[in-house]
C-alpha cells in the first residue's frame, strides 16, 4: 500500500512532459519478445506505464487473420510510441517514421538508426540527419543514442523532443555502465533525458533514476524475466524509489567513517 505521505511526495514531483504532452509514469515499456500477448498486457498493466513502444512491420499476408498489437492494447488507454528499430540508415528510419505517423495515433517517434549489427549501437551521424528531417516534418523525435554528451547536445540542437541515451546495449541487461555520462547528459540538456536500453533488473532502474534522468524505457528486462508481471511491479517501485531518492538529495560520499552514535557519554573505562 502507498501511504498518504508517500503518495503526496510522489505527486509533488514535476510533471513528466515531452513536447508539451504530460505523462503519468516515468517508466515506459516495450511490447516485444513476450511469451504471449496475455502476459505482455498483464506486465504492462503492472508496470503502470502509459507510454508503450511498438514497431512497424509488414503485415503477414499468409496469415491475415493474425492480429496486430492493437488488438491487445487499447490505443485510447496507452500512448503508442512507434520506433524505427531495425533501421540502419537515416533514409530507412525516416520512411518507417512516416509510415508510423500515418497509422494516425500521434506524431511522436522513437528514432533508432543502428550503426552495427553485433552491438546495435546507434549511428550518431544517421541519427542527426534523420532528426533534422523529421523535426522539419513536424515529428516529435525521441532519439535513441549513445551515452555520449556531444551527440546528445547535437540531437537537442537538431530539435529532438527528448534524448534517450542507453544504459548499456539493447537487450544486454548489463545495467547502467556509465552513471557519470548519463548524469552529465542530464545536467547539460534542457529536453527530457530518458534512459533507453540495458536495464536488467530493479536495482538497475533505481540507480538509473538516481542520476536524475526524467524516465526509463525498457522491454527485455520485463519480457525475459521468469515472471514478467512481478518484474514489472518491481520496476514500477524501483523507478519511483530512484526518482524520490534523487529528489531527496543523497548524503555526500566520504572515504572515511563518521559515527552515527554520540561519541560523548561513554562509560568510564
Amino acid at each position: 500500500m502507498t501511504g498518504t505521505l508517500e503518495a503526496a511526495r510522489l505527486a509533488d514531483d514535476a510533471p513528466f512532459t515531452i513536447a508539451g504532452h504530460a505523462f503519468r509514469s516515468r517508466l515506459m515499456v516495450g511490447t516485444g519478445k513476450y511469451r504471449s500477448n496475455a502476459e505482455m498486457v498483464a506486465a504492462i498493466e503492472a508496470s503502470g506505464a502509459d507510454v508503450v513502444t511498438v514497431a512497424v512491420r509488414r503485415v503477414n499476408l499468409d496469415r491475415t487473420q493474425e492480429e496486430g498489437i492493437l488488438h491487445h492494447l487499447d490505443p485510447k488507454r496507452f500512448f503508442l510510441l512507434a520506433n524505427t528499430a531495425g533501421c540502419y540508415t537515416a533514409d530507412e528510419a525516416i520512411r518507417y517514421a512516416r509510415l508510423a505517423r500515418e497509422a494516425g495515433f500521434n506524431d511522436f517517434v522513437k528514432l533508432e538508426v543502428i550503426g552495427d549489427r553485433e552491438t546495435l549501437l546507434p549511428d550518431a551521424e544517421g541519427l542527426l540527419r534523420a532528426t533534422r528531417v523529421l523535426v522539419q516534418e513536424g515529428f516529435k523525435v525521441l532519439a535513441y543514442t549513445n551515452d555520449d554528451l556531444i551527440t546528445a547536445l547535437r540531437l537537442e540542437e537538431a530539435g529532438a523532443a527528448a534524448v534517450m541515451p542507453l544504459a548499456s546495449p539493447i537487450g544486454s541487461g548489463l545495467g547502467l555502465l556509465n552513471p557519470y555520462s548519463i548524469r552529465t547528459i542530464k545536467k547539460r540538456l534542457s529536453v527530457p533525458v530518458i534512459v533507453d536500453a540495458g536495464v536488467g533488473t530493479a536495482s538497475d532502474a533505481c540507480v538509473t533514476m538516481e542520476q536524475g534522468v526524467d524516465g526509463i524505457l525498457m522491454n527485455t528486462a520485463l519480457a525475459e524475466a521468469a515472471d514478467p508481471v512481478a518484474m514489472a511491479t518491481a520496476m514500477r517501485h524501483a523507478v519511483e524509489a530512484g526518482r524520490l531518492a534523487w529528489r531527496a538529495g543523497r548524503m555526500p560520499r566520504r572515504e572515511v567513517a563518521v559515527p552515527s552514535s554520540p561519541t560523548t557519554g561513554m562509560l568510564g573505562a
Partner: protein
Amino acid sequence: MTAAAPTITITVNGEPKTFPAGLTLADLLERLGLRPDAVVVEHNRAIVRRAALGAATVQAGDEVELVHFVGGG
C-alpha cells in the same frame, strides 16, 4: 468462350501477386482480407492516405507495402 479477364502482376510486401487489371488499393486490401484502418499503405514508395485508397489504381509492376504495428521495444 469468353477471353480471360486481363491480369497484372504486382509486388506486395516483397512477394509477386497476380490480380485483375484495374484493381484499386482499396480492392487489394479487400482481396487480402485486410481492414483499411488496420494497415498503412505505401504505393511505389509513397504513402497513400486511407481516404485515397479507393481512387488509387494499381498498375503492372507496382510495389505495394502493407504495414502495421507489432510488438517492439
